[in-house]
């Protein structure tokens, strides 16, 4: 066996603390640009199916960003739930839309100033948070070991070793809420159960 290779492997296996970044910052910029551009396409395409496809690209690039942040679980869930599940349902509905008619439809209705101001406010908030919030956020990557990302999320949500986790209650409430929503949807749409 090649000792060099072996040691490299060992170090790769054992060193969870000093983990090298998954990829260079270029990946970040690439993914972020992709997300922004496709996000822009989502709102500017006249054809809704094109918008939906662009939205899928946005979601996938966000999933890529999660991966870069050593949050593979979140990335996987993003792909399954958003790109795989929700977008399919979106497309399901969109396919029934009369595209020729929707293309001719006016793009912006009279509520556009409200929307614009809301977007502006949100943007200001982001800028403010970015400028002022340096102190709030750690300026470096959180050193969570990638290999135990799933377990860490589990600990957060369900607690560990008999202790209730910090988000257990919120998580359960959210799941209950979703259950109620599902039941409501079923009852509303189904005349005879």
């Amino acid at each position, binding site marked *: 066996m090649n000792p060099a290779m072996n040691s490299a492997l060992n170090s790769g296996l054992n060193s969870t603390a000093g983990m090298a970044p998954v990829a260079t910052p270029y990946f970040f910029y690439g993914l972020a640009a992709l997300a922004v551009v496709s996000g822009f396409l989502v709102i500017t395409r006249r054809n809704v199916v094109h918008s939906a496809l662009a939205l899928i690209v946005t979601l996938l690039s966000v999933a890529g960003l999660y991966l870069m942040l050593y949050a593979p679980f979140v990335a996987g869930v993003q792909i399954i739930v958003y790109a795989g599940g929700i977008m399919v349902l979106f497309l399901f509905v969109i396919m*029934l*839309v*009369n595209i*020729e008619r929707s293309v001719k439809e006016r793009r912006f209705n009279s509520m556009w100033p409200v929307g614009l101001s809301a977007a502006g406010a949100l943007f200001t908030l982001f800028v403010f948070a970015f400028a002022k919030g340096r102190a709030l956020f750690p300026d470096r990557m959180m050193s969570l070991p990638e290999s135990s990302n799933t377990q860490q999320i589990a600990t957060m949500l369900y607690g560990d070793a008999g202790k209730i986790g910090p988000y257990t209650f919120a998580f359960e409430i959210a799941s209950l809420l979703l259950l109620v929503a599902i039941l409501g949807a079923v009852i509303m749409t189904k005349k005879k159960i």
Partner: protein
Amino acid sequence: MSAPTGEDTKNISHLAPSNRENSDQGETERKNVGGNDLTFENPDKTYLDSNELIINMGPQHPATHGVLRVILKLDGEKVLGTECVIGYLHRGVEKIAENRTYTMFNPYVDRMDYVAAVSNGLGYCEAVEKLLNVEATPRAKYIRVILTELNRIASHQLWLGTHALDIGAMTPLFYTFRDREEILKIFEKYCGARLTTHAFRIGGCQYETYAGFEKEVKNFLTFVAPKIDEYETLLTTNRIWMERTKNVGVISAADAIALGVTGPVLRASGVKWDLRKAQPYAAYSEFDFEIPVGTNGDTYDRYLVRMAEMRQSLRIIEQAVNSIPEGPIMAKVPKVIKPPVGEIYHSIESPKGELGYFIVSDGSTQPYRLRVRPPSFVNLQALDIMVRGLLVADVVAVIGTIDIVLGEVDR
């Protein structure tokens, strides 16, 4: 109703064949047989056009068994109504008959229900014989019964294979074709043709049976009986098959009679009526067989009825081939067939239902008018009430279960 507008109408005419291009395809109001209104109007300008979808099934479609075109009006996948567009295979058989002598026209009838050509020939020959007031000889009648029943089995086998294929079971098709081949071999040996046999002549049969005919038919009987069981093991208790066919395409006995439906479709609805028993022709009164009937009138019952009919046909053939009398095969008919002036209607139980010939003679060598009462044509009319409220997949199953042959529908 509103004028034809919008994409739906455009779509239909777009898909229509060219000779219908300038016609009023966009007609917005169509009625069904029961008199209920079926409006094909374009939904209003809703943003979501999810209300209804009009799709055009055929004439080039794998499951319409030829060139049948069915315009389906769908709500999602639910069928709200149908309209059959037929005639793509119309060859004007009835007009041809008026321009041919009785003998010359005989081969043409084979081209109507081409999967049961022998039955067609039997009906025609018997009708003309009746008009001539002649009767075929006993031996000819027996040969006719044997060949017609073989043909019934062949027709049902072909139906089973294609019907199962429509529902998604590929394999039965090949099994049935393998076994149908044996029947076609017998036909080929008997009269030289496999499909459009032209097996009978007015007054009897042209050919004496070949040497070993009876043995081969008997061999076939022992060969095919287990094969029918084999088809049944594939399908009868198959859960998916049952789910796909039970309570699908139900037609009540009253509806079936009102719509003139005959054959296995009628019998599956519980009406025990078979022309072979009710008004026996050829030599059928001499054989012992049963009329299988269903109870629910659904696709599954029609399947069971046809499977049972194949077995009954085997019984008839067995009796016939064991007691086939000696004697001439042609009754004495004039060389030039010139029936007296008069009208006659004669019908037989073809594999599809009542196949009737209404012949008007003016005393010349050519029929003055020859009308074919095609079972497929009349049975197809019941498609609409059978598929209402079902899904697209069921339309395919129901088209299959009616057992139409477009050559006969369109003539």
